[in-house]
Protein backbone atom coordinates (compact mmCIF):
# COMPACT_ATOMS: atom_id res chain seq x y z
CA UNK A 1 0.00 0.00 0.00
CA UNK A 2 1.35 3.39 -0.92
CA UNK A 3 -1.01 5.33 1.28
CA UNK A 4 -2.91 3.75 4.10
CA UNK A 5 -5.53 5.74 5.97
CA UNK A 6 -6.89 4.01 9.05
CA UNK A 7 -9.61 5.22 11.38
CA UNK A 8 -9.18 8.86 10.44
CA UNK A 9 -11.29 11.14 12.58
CA UNK A 10 -11.53 14.89 12.18
CA UNK A 11 -13.62 17.26 14.22
CA UNK A 12 -13.89 21.01 13.88
CA UNK A 13 -15.40 23.08 16.65
CA UNK A 14 -16.71 19.99 18.42
CA UNK A 15 -18.48 18.82 15.28
CA UNK A 16 -17.38 15.48 13.91
CA UNK A 17 -16.61 15.81 10.19
CA UNK A 18 -14.94 12.45 9.65
CA UNK A 19 -15.91 9.57 11.90
CA UNK A 20 -13.33 6.91 11.19
CA UNK A 21 -12.34 6.72 7.53
CA UNK A 22 -10.34 3.80 6.17
CA UNK A 23 -8.85 4.02 2.71
CA UNK A 24 -6.02 2.23 0.96
CA UNK A 25 -4.33 3.57 -2.13
CA UNK A 26 -2.08 1.37 -4.23
CA UNK A 27 0.48 2.45 -6.82
CA UNK A 28 -0.82 2.54 -10.36
CA UNK A 29 -4.44 2.45 -9.25
CA UNK A 30 -7.09 5.14 -9.23
CA UNK A 31 -9.19 5.11 -6.10
CA UNK A 32 -12.45 7.00 -6.50
CA UNK A 33 -14.11 8.65 -3.53
CA UNK A 34 -17.78 9.46 -4.08
CA UNK A 35 -20.50 10.98 -1.95
CA UNK A 36 -22.64 14.09 -1.82
CA UNK A 37 -21.38 17.46 -0.70
CA UNK A 38 -20.75 17.66 3.03
CA UNK A 39 -19.96 13.97 3.32
CA UNK A 40 -16.29 14.64 4.07
CA UNK A 41 -14.65 13.72 0.76
CA UNK A 42 -12.63 16.89 0.49
CA UNK A 43 -11.69 16.85 4.17
CA UNK A 44 -10.19 13.39 3.71
CA UNK A 45 -8.03 14.73 0.88
CA UNK A 46 -6.98 17.78 2.85
CA UNK A 47 -6.14 15.72 5.94
CA UNK A 48 -3.58 13.72 3.94
CA UNK A 49 -1.74 16.93 3.11
CA UNK A 50 -2.14 18.42 6.57
CA UNK A 51 -4.17 21.25 5.09
CA UNK A 52 -7.12 21.01 7.45
CA UNK A 53 -8.61 24.29 8.64
CA UNK A 54 -7.42 25.88 11.87
CA UNK A 55 -8.62 24.29 15.08
CA UNK A 56 -9.31 20.89 13.52
CA UNK A 57 -8.68 17.91 15.78
CA UNK A 58 -7.35 14.83 14.04
CA UNK A 59 -6.88 11.27 15.20
CA UNK A 60 -6.15 7.99 13.47
CA UNK A 61 -3.28 7.23 11.14
CA UNK A 62 -2.32 8.25 7.62
CA UNK A 63 0.54 5.96 6.70
CA UNK A 64 2.82 6.83 3.82
CA UNK A 65 5.27 3.96 3.77
CA UNK A 66 6.57 3.70 7.34
CA UNK A 67 5.72 7.25 8.33
CA UNK A 68 2.52 8.54 9.87
CA UNK A 69 1.73 11.87 8.25
CA UNK A 70 -0.39 12.98 11.20
CA UNK A 71 2.46 12.87 13.71
CA UNK A 72 5.19 14.06 11.37
CA UNK A 73 6.95 17.25 12.52
CA UNK A 74 6.07 20.27 10.32
CA UNK A 75 9.50 20.36 8.67
CA UNK A 76 9.29 16.79 7.50
CA UNK A 77 5.67 17.22 6.50
CA UNK A 78 6.77 20.07 4.24
CA UNK A 79 9.12 17.62 2.53
CA UNK A 80 6.23 15.29 1.87
CA UNK A 81 3.78 17.96 0.78
CA UNK A 82 4.24 18.84 -2.85
CA UNK A 83 7.11 16.38 -3.02
CA UNK A 84 5.74 12.91 -2.35
CA UNK A 85 2.07 13.79 -2.07
CA UNK A 86 0.60 16.35 -4.46
CA UNK A 87 -2.86 17.72 -4.96
CA UNK A 88 -4.93 19.04 -7.86
CA UNK A 89 -7.78 21.31 -6.86
CA UNK A 90 -11.22 21.80 -8.34
CA UNK A 91 -10.98 25.21 -9.90
CA UNK A 92 -7.90 25.80 -12.05
CA UNK A 93 -8.83 29.48 -12.32
CA UNK A 94 -8.16 30.02 -8.63
CA UNK A 95 -5.60 27.35 -7.79
CA UNK A 96 -2.96 28.87 -10.08
CA UNK A 97 -1.41 32.19 -9.10
CA UNK A 98 -2.67 34.79 -11.57
CA UNK A 99 0.41 37.01 -11.44
CA UNK A 100 3.16 34.43 -11.84
CA UNK A 101 4.06 32.80 -15.13
CA UNK A 102 3.24 29.14 -15.27
CA UNK A 103 6.96 28.49 -15.69
CA UNK A 104 7.59 30.06 -12.31
CA UNK A 105 4.80 28.02 -10.74
CA UNK A 106 6.12 24.85 -12.30
CA UNK A 107 9.72 25.31 -11.23
CA UNK A 108 9.46 26.91 -7.79
CA UNK A 109 8.73 23.73 -5.86
CA UNK A 110 10.99 21.62 -8.07
CA UNK A 111 13.93 23.82 -7.16
CA UNK A 112 12.95 23.67 -3.50
CA UNK A 113 12.21 19.97 -3.18
CA UNK A 114 14.59 18.49 -5.71
CA UNK A 115 17.27 21.17 -5.46
CA UNK A 116 17.43 21.63 -9.22
CA UNK A 117 19.20 24.52 -10.93
CA UNK A 118 17.32 27.07 -12.97
CA UNK A 119 18.10 25.56 -16.36
CA UNK A 120 17.45 21.98 -15.24
CA UNK A 121 14.13 22.97 -13.69
CA UNK A 122 13.09 24.73 -16.85
CA UNK A 123 13.98 21.76 -19.02
CA UNK A 124 11.93 19.51 -16.79
CA UNK A 125 9.01 21.97 -16.75
CA UNK A 126 8.91 22.09 -20.53
CA UNK A 127 9.02 18.30 -20.63
CA UNK A 128 6.10 18.16 -18.17
CA UNK A 129 4.07 20.62 -20.21
CA UNK A 130 4.60 18.37 -23.17
CA UNK A 131 3.53 15.37 -21.12
CA UNK A 132 0.20 16.98 -20.19
CA UNK A 133 -0.12 17.92 -23.86
CA UNK A 134 0.10 21.68 -23.79
CA UNK A 135 0.82 22.76 -27.37
CA UNK A 136 3.97 24.85 -27.79
CA UNK A 137 5.46 24.01 -24.40
CA UNK A 138 8.46 26.33 -24.87
CA UNK A 139 6.32 29.42 -25.41
CA UNK A 140 3.73 28.34 -22.87
CA UNK A 141 6.43 28.33 -20.20
CA UNK A 142 6.54 32.12 -20.11
CA UNK A 143 2.80 32.74 -20.23
CA UNK A 144 0.37 33.61 -17.46
CA UNK A 145 -2.61 31.48 -16.39
CA UNK A 146 -5.20 33.84 -17.90
CA UNK A 147 -3.79 33.18 -21.34
CA UNK A 148 -4.96 29.58 -21.19
CA UNK A 149 -8.41 28.00 -21.42
CA UNK A 150 -9.94 26.17 -18.46
CA UNK A 151 -8.93 22.73 -19.68
CA UNK A 152 -5.39 23.88 -20.36
CA UNK A 153 -5.16 25.43 -16.89
CA UNK A 154 -6.23 22.18 -15.28
CA UNK A 155 -3.58 20.36 -17.33
CA UNK A 156 -1.05 22.88 -16.08
CA UNK A 157 -2.24 22.35 -12.50
CA UNK A 158 -1.70 18.63 -13.02
CA UNK A 159 1.77 19.31 -14.40
CA UNK A 160 2.54 21.42 -11.31
CA UNK A 161 1.38 18.56 -9.10
CA UNK A 162 3.49 16.03 -11.01
CA UNK A 163 6.64 18.13 -11.10
CA UNK A 164 8.35 16.49 -8.11
CA UNK A 165 7.39 12.96 -9.17
CA UNK A 166 4.97 12.34 -6.30
CA UNK A 167 3.90 8.86 -5.28
CA UNK A 168 0.43 9.95 -4.37
CA UNK A 169 -1.79 12.37 -6.27
CA UNK A 170 -4.95 13.68 -4.68
CA UNK A 171 -7.37 15.10 -7.23
CA UNK A 172 -10.26 16.94 -5.64
CA UNK A 173 -13.05 17.25 -8.21
CA UNK A 174 -10.47 17.89 -10.95
CA UNK A 175 -12.98 18.05 -13.78
CA UNK A 176 -16.04 19.60 -12.16
CA UNK A 177 -15.28 23.09 -13.46
CA UNK A 178 -14.61 21.87 -17.01
CA UNK A 179 -16.69 21.26 -20.12
CA UNK A 180 -17.55 17.65 -20.84
CA UNK A 181 -15.39 17.49 -23.94
CA UNK A 182 -12.45 18.90 -22.00
CA UNK A 183 -13.25 16.65 -19.06
CA UNK A 184 -12.86 13.63 -21.30
CA UNK A 185 -9.35 14.78 -22.20
CA UNK A 186 -8.32 15.45 -18.60
CA UNK A 187 -9.68 12.08 -17.45
CA UNK A 188 -7.73 10.30 -20.18
CA UNK A 189 -4.64 12.21 -19.14
CA UNK A 190 -5.07 11.28 -15.46
CA UNK A 191 -5.61 7.63 -16.30
CA UNK A 192 -2.63 7.61 -18.63
CA UNK A 193 -0.32 9.23 -16.09
CA UNK A 194 -1.46 6.85 -13.40
CA UNK A 195 -0.63 3.85 -15.56
CA UNK A 196 2.61 5.28 -16.90
CA UNK A 197 4.13 6.72 -13.73
CA UNK A 198 2.65 4.25 -11.27
CA UNK A 199 0.92 6.99 -9.30
CA UNK A 200 -1.53 6.22 -6.55
CA UNK A 201 -4.43 8.52 -7.32
CA UNK A 202 -7.23 9.49 -4.96
CA UNK A 203 -9.96 10.89 -7.17
CA UNK A 204 -12.57 12.81 -5.21
CA UNK A 205 -15.70 13.40 -7.25
CA UNK A 206 -19.44 13.56 -6.89
CA UNK A 207 -19.91 12.45 -10.49
CA UNK A 208 -20.45 8.71 -10.66
CA UNK A 209 -20.00 8.84 -14.41
CA UNK A 210 -16.47 10.17 -13.98
CA UNK A 211 -15.92 7.55 -11.32
CA UNK A 212 -17.03 4.77 -13.60
CA UNK A 213 -14.74 6.00 -16.36
CA UNK A 214 -11.40 6.08 -14.54
CA UNK A 215 -11.51 4.58 -11.05
CA UNK A 216 -10.33 1.04 -10.31
CA UNK A 217 -11.65 1.00 -6.77
CA UNK A 218 -14.60 3.01 -5.55
CA UNK A 219 -15.40 4.12 -2.02
CA UNK A 220 -18.66 5.79 -1.15
CA UNK A 221 -18.80 8.23 1.74
CA UNK A 222 -21.75 9.39 3.77
CA UNK A 223 -21.72 11.62 6.85
CA UNK A 224 -18.01 11.17 7.50
CA UNK A 225 -17.95 7.41 7.08
CA UNK A 226 -17.00 5.15 4.22
CA UNK A 227 -20.10 3.05 3.72
CA UNK A 228 -18.89 0.91 0.84
CA UNK A 229 -15.59 0.06 -0.82
CA UNK A 230 -14.97 -2.29 -3.66
CA UNK A 231 -13.94 -2.75 -7.27
CA UNK A 232 -15.63 -0.31 -9.63
CA UNK A 233 -17.73 -2.83 -11.52
CA UNK A 234 -19.27 -4.33 -8.42
CA UNK A 235 -19.96 -1.10 -6.52
CA UNK A 236 -21.57 0.63 -9.49
CA UNK A 237 -23.51 -2.29 -10.88
CA UNK A 238 -24.33 -4.28 -7.82
CA UNK A 239 -24.10 -2.00 -4.80
CA UNK A 240 -24.39 -3.60 -1.38
CA UNK A 241 -25.12 -0.55 0.69
CA UNK A 242 -28.59 1.06 0.35
CA UNK A 243 -27.00 4.52 0.20
CA UNK A 244 -24.92 3.62 -2.87
CA UNK A 245 -28.04 2.24 -4.50
CA UNK A 246 -29.90 5.46 -3.69
CA UNK A 247 -27.07 7.52 -5.23
CA UNK A 248 -27.19 5.47 -8.40
CA UNK A 249 -30.97 5.60 -8.58
CA UNK A 250 -31.00 9.36 -8.20
CA UNK A 251 -29.09 9.81 -11.47
CA UNK A 252 -31.26 11.23 -14.24
CA UNK A 253 -30.06 8.59 -16.65
CA UNK A 254 -30.81 5.48 -14.65
CA UNK A 255 -34.59 6.00 -14.75
CA UNK A 256 -34.75 6.54 -18.50
CA UNK A 257 -32.49 3.59 -19.18
CA UNK A 258 -34.92 1.30 -17.45
CA UNK A 259 -37.86 2.75 -19.36
CA UNK A 260 -36.17 2.84 -22.76
Amino acid at each position, binding site marked *: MTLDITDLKVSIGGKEILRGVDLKLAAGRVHGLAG*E*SGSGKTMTGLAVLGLLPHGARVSGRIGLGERDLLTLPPKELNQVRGGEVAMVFQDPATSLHPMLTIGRQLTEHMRHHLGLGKAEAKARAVELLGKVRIPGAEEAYGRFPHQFSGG*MRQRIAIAVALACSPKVLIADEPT*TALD*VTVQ*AGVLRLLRGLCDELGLAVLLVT*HDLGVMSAVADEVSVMKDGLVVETGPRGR*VLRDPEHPYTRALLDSLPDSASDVEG
Partner: protein
Amino acid sequence: MLDIKDLVVEHRSPGRPVVRAVAGASLSVRAGEVVGLVGESGCGKSTLARAVCGLNPVTHGSIAFEGQQVTPLGLRRRKLTGIQMVFQDPYASLNPRRRVGDQIADGLRTANDTATDPADLLERVGLPRAFAGRHPHEFSGGQRQRIAIARALAARPRLLIGDEPISALDASAQAQVARLMRDLAVDSGAGLLFISHDLSVVRLIADRIAVMYLGKIVEVGGTAEVWDDPKHPYTRALLGAIPKPDGMGVLPAELAGDVPDPANPPGGCRFNPRCPLVMEVCREKEPDFGPVACWLHEPA
Protein backbone atom coordinates in the same frame (compact mmCIF):
# COMPACT_ATOMS: atom_id res chain seq x y z
CA MET B 1 -41.99 36.11 -28.21
CA LEU B 2 -38.24 36.43 -28.42
CA ASP B 3 -36.85 36.33 -31.92
CA ILE B 4 -33.15 36.45 -32.60
CA LYS B 5 -32.24 36.73 -36.28
CA ASP B 6 -28.71 36.40 -37.67
CA LEU B 7 -27.30 38.01 -34.58
CA VAL B 8 -23.68 39.11 -34.75
CA VAL B 9 -21.93 40.47 -31.68
CA GLU B 10 -18.34 41.61 -31.82
CA HIS B 11 -16.00 42.46 -29.00
CA ARG B 12 -13.55 45.20 -29.85
CA SER B 13 -10.61 45.95 -27.70
CA PRO B 14 -7.70 48.23 -28.58
CA GLY B 15 -4.64 46.52 -29.93
CA ARG B 16 -6.40 43.19 -30.48
CA PRO B 17 -8.23 41.76 -33.45
CA VAL B 18 -12.02 42.00 -33.41
CA VAL B 19 -13.53 38.94 -31.80
CA ARG B 20 -16.77 37.84 -33.34
CA ALA B 21 -18.26 36.10 -30.30
CA VAL B 22 -21.65 35.50 -31.87
CA ALA B 23 -21.46 35.06 -35.63
CA GLY B 24 -24.94 34.86 -37.09
CA ALA B 25 -27.11 33.00 -34.62
CA SER B 26 -30.89 32.67 -34.93
CA LEU B 27 -33.08 31.43 -32.13
CA SER B 28 -36.60 31.95 -30.87
CA VAL B 29 -38.22 31.43 -27.48
CA ARG B 30 -42.00 31.20 -27.13
CA ALA B 31 -44.02 32.12 -24.06
CA GLY B 32 -44.04 29.34 -21.50
CA GLU B 33 -41.26 27.50 -23.26
CA VAL B 34 -37.92 26.47 -21.83
CA VAL B 35 -35.04 26.59 -24.28
CA GLY B 36 -31.68 25.21 -23.22
CA LEU B 37 -28.60 26.68 -24.86
CA VAL B 38 -25.54 24.49 -24.55
CA GLY B 39 -21.99 24.55 -25.83
CA GLU B 40 -18.40 24.56 -24.65
CA SER B 41 -17.04 27.54 -22.78
CA GLY B 42 -16.01 30.32 -25.10
CA CYS B 43 -18.58 29.50 -27.77
CA GLY B 44 -20.55 32.72 -27.26
CA LYS B 45 -23.47 31.51 -25.14
CA SER B 46 -23.10 34.21 -22.53
CA THR B 47 -22.50 36.95 -25.09
CA LEU B 48 -25.74 35.95 -26.78
CA ALA B 49 -27.61 36.13 -23.48
CA ARG B 50 -26.08 39.48 -22.61
CA ALA B 51 -27.02 40.87 -26.02
CA VAL B 52 -30.63 39.77 -25.46
CA CYS B 53 -30.62 41.77 -22.21
CA GLY B 54 -29.07 44.74 -23.94
CA LEU B 55 -25.81 44.40 -22.06
CA ASN B 56 -23.75 43.95 -25.21
CA PRO B 57 -24.26 46.09 -28.33
CA VAL B 58 -25.45 44.25 -31.43
CA THR B 59 -23.20 44.53 -34.49
CA HIS B 60 -25.57 43.05 -37.09
CA GLY B 61 -28.87 41.26 -37.09
CA SER B 62 -31.80 41.82 -34.81
CA ILE B 63 -33.22 40.85 -31.46
CA ALA B 64 -36.95 41.40 -31.18
CA PHE B 65 -38.84 40.94 -27.95
CA GLU B 66 -42.61 40.94 -28.37
CA GLY B 67 -42.15 42.77 -31.66
CA GLN B 68 -39.94 45.46 -30.13
CA GLN B 69 -36.24 45.82 -30.83
CA VAL B 70 -33.97 45.30 -27.87
CA THR B 71 -31.81 48.38 -27.46
CA PRO B 72 -28.51 48.56 -25.58
CA LEU B 73 -28.88 49.29 -21.92
CA GLY B 74 -27.96 52.89 -21.17
CA LEU B 75 -28.00 55.13 -18.18
CA ARG B 76 -31.59 56.18 -18.77
CA ARG B 77 -34.51 54.47 -17.15
CA ARG B 78 -35.22 51.20 -18.83
CA LYS B 79 -38.55 50.54 -20.46
CA LEU B 80 -37.88 46.97 -21.40
CA THR B 81 -38.20 45.23 -18.05
CA GLY B 82 -39.91 42.19 -19.50
CA ILE B 83 -36.54 40.46 -19.79
CA GLN B 84 -34.74 39.61 -16.57
CA MET B 85 -31.52 37.77 -16.08
CA VAL B 86 -30.05 35.52 -13.42
CA PHE B 87 -26.27 35.65 -13.52
CA GLN B 88 -23.68 32.96 -13.11
CA ASP B 89 -22.07 33.94 -9.84
CA PRO B 90 -24.46 34.63 -6.97
CA TYR B 91 -21.48 35.78 -4.90
CA ALA B 92 -21.03 38.71 -7.26
CA SER B 93 -24.54 39.46 -8.49
CA LEU B 94 -26.06 40.39 -5.12
CA ASN B 95 -25.08 43.61 -3.40
CA PRO B 96 -23.25 42.50 -0.24
CA ARG B 97 -24.16 45.66 1.69
CA ARG B 98 -27.92 45.59 1.29
CA ARG B 99 -30.53 43.35 2.85
CA VAL B 100 -31.85 40.76 0.42
CA GLY B 101 -35.44 41.94 1.02
CA ASP B 102 -34.49 45.43 -0.19
CA GLN B 103 -32.84 44.00 -3.27
CA ILE B 104 -35.94 42.00 -4.11
CA ALA B 105 -38.02 45.14 -3.52
CA ASP B 106 -36.02 46.81 -6.31
CA GLY B 107 -37.45 44.23 -8.67
CA LEU B 108 -40.97 44.81 -7.39
CA ARG B 109 -40.59 48.55 -7.91
CA THR B 110 -39.62 47.97 -11.55
CA ALA B 111 -42.90 46.18 -12.07
CA ASN B 112 -44.83 48.90 -10.18
CA ASP B 113 -45.95 46.24 -7.78
CA THR B 114 -46.76 47.69 -4.37
CA ALA B 115 -48.96 44.84 -3.19
CA THR B 116 -46.35 42.11 -2.98
CA ASP B 117 -44.06 41.75 0.00
CA PRO B 118 -40.46 40.67 -0.79
CA ALA B 119 -40.98 37.87 1.73
CA ASP B 120 -43.69 36.39 -0.53
CA LEU B 121 -41.09 35.96 -3.24
CA LEU B 122 -38.65 34.36 -0.84
CA GLU B 123 -41.37 31.90 -0.01
CA ARG B 124 -41.89 31.14 -3.69
CA VAL B 125 -38.24 30.21 -4.13
CA GLY B 126 -38.43 27.99 -1.06
CA LEU B 127 -36.76 30.17 1.57
CA PRO B 128 -38.24 31.23 4.93
CA ARG B 129 -39.94 34.65 5.00
CA ALA B 130 -37.75 35.85 7.85
CA PHE B 131 -34.66 35.80 5.59
CA ALA B 132 -35.66 39.13 4.00
CA GLY B 133 -33.85 41.05 6.73
CA ARG B 134 -30.53 39.28 6.22
CA HIS B 135 -27.51 40.14 4.14
CA PRO B 136 -26.15 37.98 1.28
CA HIS B 137 -23.09 36.75 3.19
CA GLU B 138 -25.37 34.84 5.55
CA PHE B 139 -26.43 32.46 2.78
CA SER B 140 -24.90 29.53 0.94
CA GLY B 141 -24.39 29.60 -2.82
CA GLY B 142 -27.62 27.73 -3.55
CA GLN B 143 -29.62 30.04 -1.29
CA ARG B 144 -28.06 33.12 -2.86
CA GLN B 145 -28.96 31.90 -6.33
CA ARG B 146 -32.54 31.42 -5.12
CA ILE B 147 -32.53 35.03 -3.92
CA ALA B 148 -31.20 36.19 -7.29
CA ILE B 149 -34.03 34.24 -8.95
CA ALA B 150 -36.56 35.82 -6.58
CA ARG B 151 -35.22 39.26 -7.48
CA ALA B 152 -35.49 38.55 -11.19
CA LEU B 153 -39.03 37.21 -10.79
CA ALA B 154 -40.09 40.23 -8.75
CA ALA B 155 -39.95 42.36 -11.88
CA ARG B 156 -42.62 40.14 -13.50
CA PRO B 157 -40.50 39.14 -16.48
CA ARG B 158 -42.04 37.65 -19.58
CA LEU B 159 -38.68 36.20 -20.44
CA LEU B 160 -36.23 34.93 -17.87
CA ILE B 161 -32.64 34.34 -18.85
CA GLY B 162 -30.34 32.15 -16.81
CA ASP B 163 -26.69 32.61 -17.76
CA GLU B 164 -25.05 29.49 -16.32
CA PRO B 165 -27.09 29.99 -13.15
CA ILE B 166 -26.06 26.65 -11.74
CA SER B 167 -22.42 26.26 -12.62
CA ALA B 168 -21.20 28.06 -9.48
CA LEU B 169 -23.29 25.81 -7.25
CA ASP B 170 -22.58 22.56 -5.50
CA ALA B 171 -23.49 19.49 -7.48
CA SER B 172 -26.33 18.59 -5.14
CA ALA B 173 -27.91 22.05 -5.46
CA GLN B 174 -27.62 22.21 -9.25
CA ALA B 175 -30.57 20.07 -10.28
CA GLN B 176 -32.74 21.63 -7.54
CA VAL B 177 -32.11 25.21 -8.61
CA ALA B 178 -32.52 24.34 -12.28
CA ARG B 179 -35.88 22.70 -11.63
CA LEU B 180 -36.95 25.64 -9.48
CA MET B 181 -36.19 28.08 -12.29
CA ARG B 182 -38.14 26.01 -14.73
CA ASP B 183 -41.19 25.66 -12.48
CA LEU B 184 -41.30 29.33 -11.56
CA ALA B 185 -40.91 30.52 -15.14
CA VAL B 186 -43.46 28.12 -16.57
CA ASP B 187 -45.97 28.82 -13.77
CA SER B 188 -45.84 32.53 -14.43
CA GLY B 189 -46.21 31.92 -18.17
CA ALA B 190 -42.81 33.37 -18.96
CA GLY B 191 -40.29 31.93 -21.38
CA LEU B 192 -36.95 30.71 -20.08
CA LEU B 193 -33.66 30.76 -21.91
CA PHE B 194 -31.41 28.54 -19.87
CA ILE B 195 -27.72 28.59 -20.64
CA SER B 196 -25.45 25.89 -19.37
CA HIS B 197 -22.52 23.79 -20.41
CA ASP B 198 -23.96 20.85 -18.53
CA LEU B 199 -26.09 18.88 -20.96
CA SER B 200 -27.36 16.45 -18.37
CA VAL B 201 -29.03 19.25 -16.38
CA VAL B 202 -30.38 21.04 -19.45
CA ARG B 203 -31.94 17.79 -20.53
CA LEU B 204 -33.94 17.64 -17.30
CA ILE B 205 -35.61 21.00 -17.70
CA ALA B 206 -35.62 22.12 -21.35
CA ASP B 207 -38.36 21.67 -23.93
CA ARG B 208 -35.96 22.44 -26.74
CA ILE B 209 -32.19 22.35 -26.89
CA ALA B 210 -30.02 24.62 -29.01
CA VAL B 211 -26.39 23.64 -29.41
CA MET B 212 -23.92 26.41 -30.04
CA TYR B 213 -20.42 26.13 -31.45
CA LEU B 214 -18.05 29.03 -31.99
CA GLY B 215 -20.72 31.70 -32.32
CA LYS B 216 -23.19 29.69 -34.38
CA ILE B 217 -26.15 27.56 -33.47
CA VAL B 218 -25.38 24.19 -35.04
CA GLU B 219 -28.42 22.21 -34.00
CA VAL B 220 -31.87 22.97 -32.59
CA GLY B 221 -34.49 20.43 -31.73
CA GLY B 222 -36.79 18.95 -29.12
CA THR B 223 -34.96 17.75 -26.04
CA ALA B 224 -35.74 14.06 -26.52
CA GLU B 225 -34.88 14.26 -30.20
CA VAL B 226 -31.51 15.91 -29.65
CA TRP B 227 -30.63 13.65 -26.74
CA ASP B 228 -31.63 10.35 -28.33
CA ASP B 229 -30.78 11.08 -31.92
CA PRO B 230 -28.23 13.86 -32.22
CA LYS B 231 -27.59 14.79 -35.85
CA HIS B 232 -24.68 17.21 -35.86
CA PRO B 233 -21.28 15.59 -35.29
CA TYR B 234 -20.57 18.23 -32.64
CA THR B 235 -23.71 17.38 -30.68
CA ARG B 236 -22.73 13.73 -30.93
CA ALA B 237 -19.29 14.49 -29.60
CA LEU B 238 -20.75 16.52 -26.72
CA LEU B 239 -23.09 13.71 -25.73
CA GLY B 240 -20.44 11.06 -26.26
CA ALA B 241 -18.13 12.85 -23.82
CA ILE B 242 -20.52 12.43 -20.91
CA PRO B 243 -19.21 9.48 -18.91
CA LYS B 244 -21.81 6.87 -18.06
CA PRO B 245 -21.99 5.41 -14.56
CA ASP B 246 -22.22 1.82 -15.78
CA GLY B 247 -19.17 0.54 -13.96
CA MET B 248 -17.53 -0.62 -17.17
CA GLY B 249 -14.53 1.68 -16.91
CA VAL B 250 -14.99 3.07 -20.40
CA LEU B 251 -13.16 6.35 -20.86
CA PRO B 252 -15.41 8.86 -22.59
CA ALA B 253 -14.65 9.74 -26.17
CA GLU B 254 -12.39 12.74 -26.48
CA LEU B 255 -13.07 15.47 -28.99
CA ALA B 256 -9.67 16.33 -30.40
CA GLY B 257 -8.38 19.87 -30.19
CA ASP B 258 -9.64 22.98 -28.49
CA VAL B 259 -12.28 25.48 -29.53
CA PRO B 260 -10.53 27.59 -32.18
CA ASP B 261 -9.88 31.26 -31.52
CA PRO B 262 -13.12 33.13 -32.36
CA ALA B 263 -10.97 36.01 -33.63
CA ASN B 264 -9.70 33.72 -36.35
CA PRO B 265 -12.33 31.07 -37.11
CA PRO B 266 -11.54 28.31 -39.60
CA GLY B 267 -12.87 28.68 -43.15
CA GLY B 268 -15.89 26.71 -44.28
CA CYS B 269 -17.81 24.91 -41.58
CA ARG B 270 -16.54 26.12 -38.23
CA PHE B 271 -16.36 22.61 -36.86
CA ASN B 272 -14.36 21.14 -39.75
CA PRO B 273 -10.89 20.97 -38.10
CA ARG B 274 -12.29 18.86 -35.24
CA CYS B 275 -15.01 16.99 -37.08
CA PRO B 276 -14.52 13.22 -37.38
CA LEU B 277 -16.73 13.11 -40.49
CA VAL B 278 -15.19 16.03 -42.34
CA MET B 279 -15.78 16.14 -46.11
CA GLU B 280 -14.37 18.25 -48.94
CA VAL B 281 -17.34 20.62 -48.97
CA CYS B 282 -16.98 21.36 -45.24
CA ARG B 283 -13.65 23.11 -45.77
CA GLU B 284 -15.00 25.32 -48.53
CA LYS B 285 -18.55 26.35 -47.74
CA GLU B 286 -20.18 27.19 -44.47
CA PRO B 287 -23.50 25.38 -43.89
CA ASP B 288 -25.89 28.20 -43.08
CA PHE B 289 -29.17 26.37 -42.84
CA GLY B 290 -31.10 24.89 -39.94
CA PRO B 291 -32.16 23.09 -37.89
CA VAL B 292 -28.92 21.09 -38.26
CA ALA B 293 -26.13 23.17 -39.72
CA CYS B 294 -24.12 20.34 -41.22
CA TRP B 295 -23.54 19.30 -44.83
CA LEU B 296 -24.50 15.75 -43.90
CA HIS B 297 -27.97 16.96 -43.02
CA GLU B 298 -28.61 19.45 -45.79
CA PRO B 299 -32.35 19.98 -46.20
CA ALA B 300 -33.51 18.70 -49.58
